[in-house]
């Protein structure tokens, strides 16, 4: 391993999320509720990346997520790399896949949308094949993926 990768310590067992766009790091933290976890978590923020300029990385020890938990990250970080680690070895590597429907993840930007006025979960579906535009199922407002704000 080269020196750069070792800027964030390796973990024995757990999950590594790599290639997170730095501006979305805290969205990922929030979506996975990492702030509520007692596991050991190392976060690298604004690391140099040849492909991305800067990137962020999260390593969570002794924790494996369900595909549903991980796929919800697709809306904020579709190009994330996900590694499952056992005994310091990557035993699985996979991309995140945007689900048909994003439930309770994205906040609708329309202040007159019912979802911003009732205690309820939001629902979005992708409009374009590249999944770059998603649409609120309730008020039909379109949102560019890059403009997405997640629910708090």
């Amino acid at each position, binding site marked *: 391993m080269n020196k750069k990768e070792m800027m964030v310590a390796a973990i024995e067992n757990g999950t590594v999320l790599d290639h997170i766009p730095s501006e979305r790091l805290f969205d990922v933290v929030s979506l996975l509720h990492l702030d509520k976890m007692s596991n050991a978590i190392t976060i690298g923020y604004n690391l140099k990346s040849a492909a991305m300029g800067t990137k962020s990385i999260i390593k969570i020890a002794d924790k494996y997520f369900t595909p549903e938990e991980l796929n919800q990250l697709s809306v904020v970080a579709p190009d994330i790399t996900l590694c499952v680690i056992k005994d310091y070895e990557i035993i699985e590597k996979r991309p995140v896949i945007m689900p048909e429907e994003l439930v309770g993840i994205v906040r609708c930007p*329309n202040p*007159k*949308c*019912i*979802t911003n*006025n*009732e*205690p*309820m979960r939001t629902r979005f579906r992708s409009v374009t094949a590249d999944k770059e535009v998603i649409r*609120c*199922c*309730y*008020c*039909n*407002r*379109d949102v560019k993926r890059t403009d997405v704000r997640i629910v708090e």
Partner: protein
Amino acid sequence: MKNRSLVTIAGHSREKIEYLIKMAQEFERHPNRRLLAGKVVATLFFEPSTRTRLSFETAANRLGARVIGFADPKVTSGTKGETLKDTIMMVSNYADVIVMRHYLEGAALYASEVAPVPIVNAGDGANQHPSQTMLDLYTIYQTQGTLDNLNIYMVGDLKYGRTVHSLLMAMRHFNPTFHFIAPDELAMPAAYKRYCEEQGISYVEHQDFDADTISGADILYMTRVQKERFADLMEYERVKDRYLLKKDMLCKARENMKILHPLPRVNEIEYSIDDTPYAYYFQQAQNGLYARQALICDVLGITLDDVIKDNTIYQ
């Protein structure tokens, strides 16, 4: 039980639209029936809309249902902080169907997800107003004898006009040609033009509004250019009289051409036009009754066959 709510007709098939038109025709023939005797229809208007409410309540009353509800949101618990869900759950205990107008977009879909009884969307903010679309489709069919291959001219506020957007989408099954006549500020949004392109619907945009421009129209769908839509009032003053329909502009109109308007009209159709054979907006409003009778019955699971065989008709 399958939720039969009516939230939008944008997704309705050609067959479903034609089916509802046939049902509305039955109600036009015999509007007074006891088909809904013993049923309770709730009309919940979280936003006042006298015209739509009276039309729905008349539809329910003429079918023998009893009507409960409110016309003014000030009297509801919403002002005390009650959620829409709680109000809907409470009213579902009393009524067989809920007709709802709400100022928030998406309210009708949400209500249909939580309610154990069907919801009829009577307008949710700037989003959908399917009963208006249904009565527009019915009126177009009634005046032209078909919905296919028509030249539909839309005039005025095409940017915010919910009725023109819904009509545009509902007409996609019928190979229309649209003509959009509007000032730049209120032009048809790009999203709807893109929709036309995706659906293979041809459209033409015009700036001028004169006898020549509208000479090819089968349907002239007028809407009101509202002052409050303009950021620049000078601009409003400049265009406000350009989209008024005057009687002499009808000199080249086709014989079958009919003028529609969702009402209320202010001055965008000259009053002397009311007496010409082209004026059809009052009949259009009346058709709202038959269209809404059909929609209420449909969500309650009453079929066209039930309506045709109905023996509760009275004069």
